[in-house]
C-alpha cells in the first residue's frame, strides 16, 4: 500500500515536471498520447472489464471532437458549454450504438459496432456541417481564467488533471459493485444473470462508460489541436487503439494506459516509417493474443508464478475449513403464506420437434427438501432452466411464493428469492472466490448506479457492508483460506462448495441444486448432505437434482421422478423406489420380469 502511494506520488511529480524538460514538439506528442490514454481507458472498461466487443470507440472520440467543433464554430457556443453538450451527445450516441449489444454479442457485436463506426466516418467525410474531407478548423482556445491554454505546455496540466480523475474513477468502478458485476458478466453472462446481475443494463452501462471516456478524450483533443478531420477517426486508428489496449492488457486499466502511452510514443518515433510501425504493432498484437493474452499488465503475475514454480513452491497449503451450520430458523416463521412455495403447473418446453418437458406439474412446500431424479435426458435440468428463467416455457405457469413468475428474467427471479447452482459449475473464472461471492451478495438494482456519478461515498460504504457479508459467508462454508484464489486453481469439490456459498449469500427463499454431488468423493458427499440439511433448517426450501441415490434417499422427504420429460412418480423415497414405472425407466423393460423387482426395489431403497 505504502509502495503504491509512493509510486503515485512519484508519477505526479514526473507529470508536474515533464513540461520543463521537453521541447515544443515533444510536449505536443505527450499531449496527444495522454488523450489516447483517456480513450484507451474507455475501451478497456467496455472490452476488458465488461467483455463488450466495442469497435466504435474511435467513433465516440470523433463524436466528442466534432460536436465541440460544430457547436463552437457553427453555433457560436463558448468552449466549455460546447464541451459539456458534446459529452452529453457522445453518451447519447454511445447508448444508441450499444443497443445492439442487448441482442447480439462477441463477433456479431464487433461487426455491428465497426459498421456503425464506418457509418460515422462516412457521414463526417460527406456532410457539409462537418466540413467534409477537409474537416473543421478554427475551434477556439478553451478559456481558463488568465491561463493561456493555446500553449501546449499549460494544456498538459489540464490534461493531467482530467486524466488522473478519469483513471481514478475507472479504477473505482472496476473495484466496486458495478465493475464486479461487469466482470462477472464478462466471464459468464448466464451465471451473472442467475445471481442477480441485470445483464442488459450492465451492457448499456458499459457502452455508457466507454462513450463518456470517448467524449472526454474528444473534447480534450478538440481543445488541443483545435482542428478536426475525418482521418483522425479512421479504422486505422481504431485498430491502433485496439492494439494499445491488447498489448497493454485489456483487463487492467493501468495496462491500457501504459499500452496507449507506449504505442503513441512509438508511433511518433517511427513516424518516418509508419508502414513498418503498422507492421510491427500488427505482429505484436498477434503475438500478444497467442502468448500473453493478459498483455503487459499481466506480465508481473506471470513472471511471479513462473518464479514460484521454478523454486518448487507448490500451491498454497490452504485447507478447507469445516462447514458451520446456519442458525436454525424459528419454526413459527417458516410458512410464509398458504400453499406451496414453488408451484409448477403444466409446464411444457419444446425444442423444435423435441418435447423436453411435457405438462410437468409439481409443488414444493416451504421448508421441504425435494429430490428430482430421472435418467439422463429426462428433462431435469431443462425444468430448472425454466424455473430459473433461462428458458421461456412453451406452456404452463410457475409460481414462487404464490406469485406467478413465468417469463421473468433470471435476475428478476434472483431478486425474488431464487438461487441456483449449475450442473457444469459456472463460477466466474477471472474473479477470486471472494469476488464470486460478492457479486451474488450485491442485492441492489443496476439503476442505483447514479450514485457513482454523485455520491461515491455511498458506494464505498455499501461495498464495505457487502464485503463483511461475503466474508462471513465464506467463513461459514469454511472457505476463508481460499478467498483470494481463482476458482480454476481449486480442487473440484471446493469449487462446488464455492458455488453453493455463492448461491446462499443472496439470501434465497428457494435454492435449486443441479447435481451438486457430481464428481465429489464419499466424504465430500457426506458434508454436502450436512450442508443441505442446515440450509433447509435455516428456512430455505431446497430442490435438488441428483444421480447419487444414496444422497437423495437420505436427504429428501419427497422425490419427483422424471422420464422423457414427464413426471412418472412422486412420493417418499421408499414409495418411489418401489414404483414399477420408475424401475422401468431406470433399468428398462427386462427388469420387469417377475423375479427382479423386489431385489431392485430393496437395492434402490438402501
Amino acid at each position, binding site marked *: 500500500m505504502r509502495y503504491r502511494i509512493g509510486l503515485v506520488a512519484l508519477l505526479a511529480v514526473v507529470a508536474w515536471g515533464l513540461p520543463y524538460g521537453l521541447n515544443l514538439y515533444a510536449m505536443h506528442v505527450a499531449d496527444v498520447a495522454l488523450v489516447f490514454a483517456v480513450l484507451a481507458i474507455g475501451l478497456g472498461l467496455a472490452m476488458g472489464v465488461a467483455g463488450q466487443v466495442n469497435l466504435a470507440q474511435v467513433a465516440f472520440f470523433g463524436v466528442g471532437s466534432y460536436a465541440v467543433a460544430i457547436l463552437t464554430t457553427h453555433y457560436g457556443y463558448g468552449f466549455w458549454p460546447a464541451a459539456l453538450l458534446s459529452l452529453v451527445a457522445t453518451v447519447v450516441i454511445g447508448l444508441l450504438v450499444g443497443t*445492439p449489444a442487448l441482442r447480439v454479442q462477441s463477433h456479431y457485436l464487433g461487426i455491428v459496432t465497426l*459498421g456503425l463506426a464506418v457509418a460515422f466516418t462516412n457521414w463526417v467525410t460527406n456532410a457539409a456541417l462537418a466540413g467534409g474531407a477537409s474537416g473543421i478548423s478554427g475551434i477556439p482556445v478553451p478559456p481558463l481564467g488568465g491561463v493561456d491554454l493555446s500553449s501546449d505546455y499549460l494544456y498538459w496540466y489540464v490534461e493531467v488533471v482530467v486524466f488522473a480523475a478519469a483513471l481514478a474513477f475507472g479504477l473505482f468502478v472496476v473495484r466496486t459493485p458495478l465493475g464486479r458485476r461487469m466482470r462477472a458478466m464478462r466471464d459468464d453472462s448466464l451465471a451473472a444473470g442467475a445471481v442477480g446481475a441485470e445483464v442488459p443494463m450492465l451492457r448499456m452501462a458499459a457502452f455508457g462508460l466507454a462513450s463518456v471516456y470517448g467524449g472526454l478524450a474528444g473534447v480534450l483533443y478538440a481543445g488541443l489541436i483545435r482542428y478536426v478531420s475525418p482521418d483522425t477517426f479512421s479504422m486505422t486508428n481504431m485498430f491502433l487503439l485496439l492494439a494499445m489496449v491488447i498489448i497493454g492488457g485489456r483487463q487492467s486499466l493501468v495496462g491500457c494506459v501504459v499500452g496507449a502511452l507506449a504505442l503513441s510514443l512509438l508511433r511518433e518515433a517511427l513516424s518516418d516509417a509508419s508502414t513498418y510501425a503498422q*507492421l510491427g504493432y500488427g505482429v505484436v*498484437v498477434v503475438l500478444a493474443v497467442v502468448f500473453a493474452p493478459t498483455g503487459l499488465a499481466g506480465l508481473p503475475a506471470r513472471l511471479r508464478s513462473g518464479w514460484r514454480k521454478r523454486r518448487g513452491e507448490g500451491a498454497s497449503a490452504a485447507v478447507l475449513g469445516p462447514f458451520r451450520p446456519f442458525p436454525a430458523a424459528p419454526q413459527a416463521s417458516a410458512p410464509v403464506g398458504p400453499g406451496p412455495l414453488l408451484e409448477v403447473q403444466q409446464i411444457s418446453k419444446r425444442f423444435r420437434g423435441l418435447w423436453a418437458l411435457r405438462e410437468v406439474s409439481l409443488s414444493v412446500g416451504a421448508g421441504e427438501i425435494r429430490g428430482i431424479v430421472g435418467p439422463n435426458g429426462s428433462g431435469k435440468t431443462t425444468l430448472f432452466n425454466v424455473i430459473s428463467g433461462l428458458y421461456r416455457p412453451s406452456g404452463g405457469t410457475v409460481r414462487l411464493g404464490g406469485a406467478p413468475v413465468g417469463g421473468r428474467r433470471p435476475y428478476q427471479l434472483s431478486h425474488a428469492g431464487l438461487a441456483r447452482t449449475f450442473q457444469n459449475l*459456472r463460477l466466474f473464472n477471472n474473479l477470486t472466490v471472494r469476488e464470486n461471492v460478492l457479486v451474488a451478495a450485491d442485492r441492489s438494482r443496476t439503476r442505483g448506479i447514479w450514485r457513482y456519478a454523485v455520491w461515491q461515498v455511498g458506494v464505498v460504504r455499501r461495498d464495505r457492508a457487502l464485503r463483511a457479508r461475503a466474508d462471513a459467508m465464506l467463513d461459514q462454508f469454511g472457505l476463508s483460506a481460499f478467498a483470494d484464489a481463482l476458482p480454476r486453481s481449486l480442487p473440484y469439490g471446493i469449487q462446488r462448495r464455492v458455488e453453493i456459498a455463492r448461491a446462499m449469500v443472496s439470501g434465497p427463499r428457494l435454492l435449486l441444486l443441479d447435481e451438486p454431488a457430481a464428481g465429489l468423493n464419499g466424504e465430500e458427499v457426506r458434508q454436502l448432505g450436512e450442508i443441505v440439511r442446515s440450509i433447509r433448517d435455516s428456512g430455505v426450501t431446497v430442490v435438488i437434482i441428483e444421480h447419487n441415490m444414496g444422497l437423495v434417499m437420505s436427504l429428501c422427504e419427497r422425490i419427483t421422478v422424471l422420464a422423457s420429460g414427464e413426471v412418472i412418480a412422486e412420493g417418499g423415497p421408499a414409495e418411489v423406489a418401489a414404483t414399477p414405472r420408475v424401475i422401468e425407466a431406470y433399468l428398462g423393460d427386462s427388469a420387469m420380469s417377475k423375479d427382479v423387482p423386489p431385489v431392485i426395489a430393496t437395492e434402490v431403497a438402501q
Partner: protein
Amino acid sequence: MQVFFQTLIGGLSLGAVYALVAMGFSLVYRTMGLVNFAHGDVVMIGAYVASTFYMSAKLPFALAIVAAIVVTGLIGVIIERVLRPLENKDFDLMLIGTIGFGIVLEAVATLIWGATGRAVPSPVPAAPLDIFGIRVRTYNLVVLAIAALAMVALVLFLQRTKRGAAMQAVAMDYEAATAVGIHVGRSNALSFSIGAGLAALGGGLVGPLLYVNASMGGSLGIKGFAAAILGGFGSIPGAILGGLAIGVLDSFSAGHFQGYSDLVTFLVFTVIIMVRPTGVFGERTVNRA
C-alpha cells in the same frame, strides 16, 4: 425502370463478390469456430496478386486468379497455424488476433505495392451489352457467372465428396469426427485454404470493378462479414443470399444517397441484425446451463 435494372445488375455482381467473401467467412467459421477478421485483407491481397500477374506478368486473367488463389491459400494456412492454440477457446482473443493479422497484411501490401493503389482494366471488351434495352456491363455478367460456378462447385464439394463430408462432420462435432478417423487438423487447414481461395477469387474478380488499394480490405471485409451474418453465420446458402442482399442494398443506397451509401447500408444492417440476430438461415444456438 432502366436505371433500376442497371443498379440491380451492378448490385448483384458486387453482391456476388461479397457472397464469395461471406462464403469464405462462413466456411472457416463453421469448421473451426474461428471468426477471421483478416479475411477482408486476404481478399485485398488476392486482388493485388491477381492484378499484378494480370497486368505486369501479362498472364491470362483466369491464370492470374489461380495464382492469387495459391498465394492466399498459403496465407490462410499460416493464419490458421499461428492462431491454432486459441481455437475453440477464447473467442474474443481469436477475433482480436485475426484483426492483428489484418493490420499486418495491410502493412505488407503497402510495402509491396505502395499506398496509391491501381485501376485494373476489364479482361473482357468494355462495350456494354444491350439486353432488352438494358445496358449491362459485360464484365458484371462474367463476375456473376464465375461466382455462381464457384458456389455450385463448393456446395457439390461439401455434399458429394468424402472430404467435403468430413469437413461437415468436423463442423458438427470435432471430437466425434476424430473418433471416426478424420484428421481434424488437415481438414481444418483445407477448409481455411478453401476459404482463403474464395477470398482470392473474390479479390481477383473485384479488381476491375473497384479501385485496388491497400485499405480496400477493410470495407470489403466488413461488408462480406455483414453478408455472412445477414444470411445466418455459418450457412452457405445464407452467405450467398446475404452477399447479394448487401450488394444490392449498397448499390441502391449509392444511387439514392450518393456519398452516404456506407452510412445507410450499415444503419440498415444494424436494424436487421437487431430484429433477427441469427440471420435468415441461422441456427439459434441453445445455451446449456
